């Protein structure tokens, strides 16, 4: 590792990339021409100092062990999990016992906690965290976060973001990554081929889907489906046209309203039912999983879907990895504006790391949470494992074939830390998609009144209306009656 002096020199030259590289355990410099998307930014000096101090302090824990239950961070298969743990130890000096279930994560998480398995770190989403906070099984991290030079630095995690995971002024978790939004993702190459503009209104979306279906954009004589989905939340960009969103809304007089079950949503269902009746929405949407939809999109059978912004880049990266000469270009499209020109798309609920109250090494666990947001931590959880997912030759970073397949996602493909710049460059299309997220996406509000039984009721009604089994006006009336009878709306 280079000395702190050389690190300071690099920072003084204005390149945070150099500083990032030094913490990876080797002396790297980054060639801008090799990574055109990576641009040098001024790193926050306080952050860099805190990062140095953190890396130094981790030496005290060399040889210690940490046990982590993860749904996302790690390798892409059990063999790569082993390499991930080895790389983690190389970078931190701490031995990692990584438990990385391949399926039924929440079941594993709750079963292990109930059985008394002791983890230092557990990963979960906000809804599960709500439950854990209610059950008082998490370590309060509020004071440690505010005292942390890394996590308490707003260039690492903006101060207002913490509000999403604050409970009565207390914080029990640390973000895993910047959560994107679900947005319509389209085949830009098909739009270009048929001379179509990016649709911005409901009418334009309809016309575009028809044109793509009938225009044989893939050149194989097929008729790609216009839009596919796996859940009712995938239709949010269309609800946006009427300024509606998922979850609860409280009126001025304090009444509880669920937009999706309101009279204002009837035109949305009429529009979607029309799309479905004309074969523009995938007939399998109510029963299929996302893997099937992704597969359709990547095999020329689908023109558009609603999915995470990160996947705009991942689609492009994976198609390029499979065939460097591919014409495939996915692009993120903002939803449809309402009459006030506002677009409402849904940002993902926070995914977080927490320290259970029975963690054997809570102090070390918190240091790892800080380290997660430093350059070496981000490098590991995005690019992956040195000499496996990526290589560094004469200071130039390059993805290996394995790394291309993994598309720079080992748990944290979109870090919060604004000081870090990806030395490879972002996946194609990701930056533009994230710009849409930053401009238009916000969290749905559920709040304490939201009951787990509401979503199945709303989902079932919405699907039946889209399928044409129930007329939208009747469907919404029945849904309102159902929700009102159970006290879920006023």
């Amino acid at each position, binding site marked *: 590792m280079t000395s702190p002096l050389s690190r300071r020199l690099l920072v003084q030259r204005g390149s945070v990339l150099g500083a990032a590289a030094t913490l990876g355990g080797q002396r790297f410099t980054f060639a801008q021409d090799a990574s055109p998307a990576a641009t040098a930014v001024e790193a926050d000096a306080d952050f860099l100092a805190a990062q140095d101090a953190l890396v130094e302090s981790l030496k005290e824990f060399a040889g210690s062990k940490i046990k982590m239950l993860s749904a996302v961070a790690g390798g892409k298969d059990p063999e790569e999990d082993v390499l991930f743990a080895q790389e983690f130890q190389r970078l931190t000096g701490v031995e990692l016992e990584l438990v990385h279930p391949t399926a039924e994560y*929440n*079941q594993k998480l*709750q*079963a292990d*906690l*109930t059985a*008394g398995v002791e983890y230092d770190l557990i990963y979960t989403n906000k809804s599960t965290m709500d*439950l*854990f906070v209610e*059950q*008082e*099984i998490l370590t309060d991290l509020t004071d440690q976060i505010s005292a942390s030079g890394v996590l308490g630095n707003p260039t690492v995690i903006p101060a207002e973001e913490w509000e999403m995971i604050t409970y009565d002024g207390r914080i029990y978790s640390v973000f895993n990554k910047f959560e994107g939004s679900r947005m319509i993702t389209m085949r830009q190459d098909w739009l270009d081929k048929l001379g179509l503009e990016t649709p911005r209104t409901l009418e334009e979306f309809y016309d575009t889907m028809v044109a793509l279906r009938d225009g044989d954009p893939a050149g194989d004589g097929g008729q790609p489906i216009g839009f596919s989905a796996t*859940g*009712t939340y995938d239709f949010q960009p269309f609800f946006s046209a009427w300024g509606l969103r998922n979850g609860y809304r409280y009126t001025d007089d304090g009444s509880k309203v669920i937009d999706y079950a309101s009279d204002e949503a009837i035109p949305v269902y009429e529009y979607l039912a029309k799309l479905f009746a004309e074969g523009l929405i*995938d*007939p*399998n949407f*109510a*029963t299929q999983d996302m893997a099937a939809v992704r597969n359709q999109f990547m095999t020329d059978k689908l023109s558009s879907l609603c999915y995470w912004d990160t996947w705009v880049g991942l689609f492009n990266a994976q198609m390029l990895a499979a065939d460097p000469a591919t014409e495939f270009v996915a692009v993120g499209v903002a939803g449809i504006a309402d009459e006030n020109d506002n677009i409402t798309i849904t940002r993902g609920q926070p995914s977080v790391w927490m320290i*259970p*109250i*029975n963690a054997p090494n809570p102090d070390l666990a918190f240091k790892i949470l800080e380290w997660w947001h430093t350059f070496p931590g981000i490098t590991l959880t995005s690019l992956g494992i040195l000499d496996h997912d990526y290589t560094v030759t004469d200071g130039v970073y390059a993805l290996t074939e394995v790394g291309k397949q993994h598309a720079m996602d080992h748990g944290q493909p979109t870090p919060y830390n604004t000081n870090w710049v990806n030395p490879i460059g972002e996946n194609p299309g990701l930056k533009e998609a994230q710009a849409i997220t930053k401009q238009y996406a916000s969290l749905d509000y559920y709040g304490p009144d939201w009951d*787990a*039984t509401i979503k*199945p*009721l709303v*989902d*079932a009604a919405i*699907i*039946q209306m889209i*399928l044409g*089994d129930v007329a939208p006006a009747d469907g919404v009336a029945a849904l309102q009656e159902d929700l009102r009878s*159970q006290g879920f709306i006023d």
Partner: protein
Amino acid sequence: MNLGMSGNMRRYAWLYVMILPIIVYLGLFVYYPLVQGVISSFQETKLLGATSWVGTENYRTAIDTPQFWQVVRNTLLIGGGIILLGFFPPIMVALALNEVMNIAFKKIAQTTVYIPHLFSWVVIAGMWMYILAPSGGLVNEFIKSVGGEPIRFFTSIGWARSLMIGLPIWRDMGYYAIIYLAAITSISPSLYEAARVDGASRFQQTWQITLPMLKPTMLVVFMLNTLGMLRIFDQIFIMRNPVSKRYVDVLMTYVYDLGITQGKIGLASAISVMVLGATLVMTAIVWTVTGFGKEE
């Protein structure tokens, strides 16, 4: 000679030692969790840390929840449907297989009807969801090719519930048919010889000899199915979707949702205890009504 209890213990000491592992196994993995489940049903249970006693509150909460009664109704409809509609098909298959004279064809037919039982529900559900898919599914493509309207099997409420009944019957038909076939082959040939001497037709032999002799096996199968009726889970969990959920969710999927998804372990335990109690009651009723265990 009366050795007394201690004498018996000494005499059969090795047998007791040999049975010890299974007693330990049952104690650890069956009875201990069972007792813990009953205890949890009277507690507000946390995933970690202290729990508190809440008396019968979990039971009262369950009974007062409309969703509970909806899943009870679904369970009785689906579970009852599987038992009643699934009772005769395996017998008919077994009788049909018994009539096959060509040994090779018989073995192939036996294997063919048995194979679905070997597949997990994940495989079966995936296969049928593919076959019945509205777009690209074998059945609907055929319907469309003859000018019909595609059927949305899994999102049509009536069809969804019927599939939850029909697919388990199809999957397990071969398994139960093999049981019945084994019972048929153990019927004494002399009974059939005597019937033939008396001029009985093939149908009369089946009606008067085979079916009566199958009664004990039928009772065992019926009892096993009754024991499992309230515990159906796999096919529902895998094949339900937002539209059908309300109409196909059963007690065990409800318990899963409460316990695993929502973390309401006390409430989930209370419902599980009620399921256990109801299963015992139903089994006792079936036992009494059918005279199970009393047949000669």
